[in-house]
């Protein structure tokens, strides 16, 4: 995942600030998938993630004159999304009957006994990508945020600290603990990938393109 150069976003931002709302569509097109991914993985609920994406871009639009053009727009919109997701997760904890599952209600052992996903023809690792995604979703919110931004979005530790609005040391700790938990959760896949080689281990990401094929993970509300 390459960083979007700030200059690429500078032009549409200037146009939006000059009153051209259509130019905001460029920003939505460029960063929408990333924003959706973060919201979806943080909230673990498709419809709530859609709401969060829309609200994140609306908030960014309204506050665009306060955006620092020296910083990447991508980090700014991810930070808005992160805070929206945090608010929604906090609201869930206050109302446990609502959508989603609170982090401390997750049983990580569920991942080990998860029923196998439907096998796609020609797929020699049908459960790999599914389990990586499920393992990420099973992490506590803070670890999940760090891990998703680091490994899925490819942000540096410094960028994660900026997006999450947390000290660098805290981010490193979250990443370390997330890795330790993921090492256990994904141990069977890792062992399998040792036999099949790295290509098989990487293939899990390609499956993410088919949303309907994936059953809901045990942690999803």
């Amino acid at each position, binding site marked *: 995942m390459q960083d979007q150069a700030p200059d690429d976003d500078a032009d549409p931002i200037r146009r939006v600030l000059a009153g051209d709302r259509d130019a905001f569509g460029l920003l939505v097109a460029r960063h929408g998938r990333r924003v959706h991914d973060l919201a979806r993985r943080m909230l673990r609920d498709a419809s709530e993630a859609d709401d969060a994406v829309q609200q994140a871009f609306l908030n960014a639009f309204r506050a665009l004159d306060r955006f620092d053009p020296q910083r990447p727009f991508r980090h700014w919109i991810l930070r808005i999304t992160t805070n929206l997701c945090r608010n929604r997760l906090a609201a869930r904890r206050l109302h446990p009957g609502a959508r989603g599952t609170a982090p401390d209600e997750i049983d990580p052992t569920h991942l080990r006994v998860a029923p196998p996903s439907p096998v796609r023809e020609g797929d020699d690792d049908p459960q790999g990508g599914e389990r990586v995604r499920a393992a990420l979703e099973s992490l506590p919110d803070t670890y999940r945020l760090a891990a998703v931004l680091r490994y899925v979005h490819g942000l540096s530790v410094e960028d994660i600290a900026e997006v999450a609005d947390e000290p660098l040391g805290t981010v490193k700790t979250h990443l370390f603990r997330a*890795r330790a938990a993921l090492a256990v959760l994904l141990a069977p896949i890792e062992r399998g990938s040792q036999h099949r080689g790295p290509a098989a281990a990487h293939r899990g990401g390609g499956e993410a393109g088919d949303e309907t094929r994936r059953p809901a993970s045990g942690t999803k509300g």
Partner: protein
Amino acid sequence: MDARPPLPDDLLPDPSAEAPSAENTARLEALLRGEELLPVPVGLLSRVRDAVKDAPPAPFERHLGADAPNLRAAPSALSSRGRSVAQRVAAAVLVAVGAALTFAGVEPVAAAGETLREAGVPTELGLSPRPVVADAVVRPFTDGWSRAWEQPPDMAALAQVPASVPGGPLTLASLSLALLGSGLGLAWRARGRRASSPSSLSHPPAPSSSSPTGGPA
């Protein structure tokens, strides 16, 4: 025994005792980096674009004026803020004129009094032109009223005032009160419009002014 399900942290209670080797870490990270962005639901981004297009004017757009190419606000001679200011000014003028005519006895009242005097109506009503205006500097205008109380108006003479006399006391009082009332009504409407300006019910709340990114609740 604790029935509560363990957190992932509990899976590795002591990371230093079971720290993954560099090789394992590299393999794990490679596995995680293979995870791609989730697909965006069909139509989500276009819905977001439409929501932004239909959103009420952002704070920075309110200063753009008519030059902005795609503003949602309908063209108008005055902006909503300008209309509100104009309405308040008009209300203030109407109230001031109405109050002056009603209570102060300024020139229009004096002129009306002169008309009455020419028509033969006694001027002890407090509508006398010169004395009221001249004495206003040294005496409060209520003196005129007190004199009027002391010397009740000659109602019979008043009744003989021809209806066509311009600025008759009833016409004048009605006009004054009408102006005062319309001014107060306009001020009330302007206040009501400001109170019922677009609410946040139909749109998600904007980020706080202190932090555009919003913050955890």
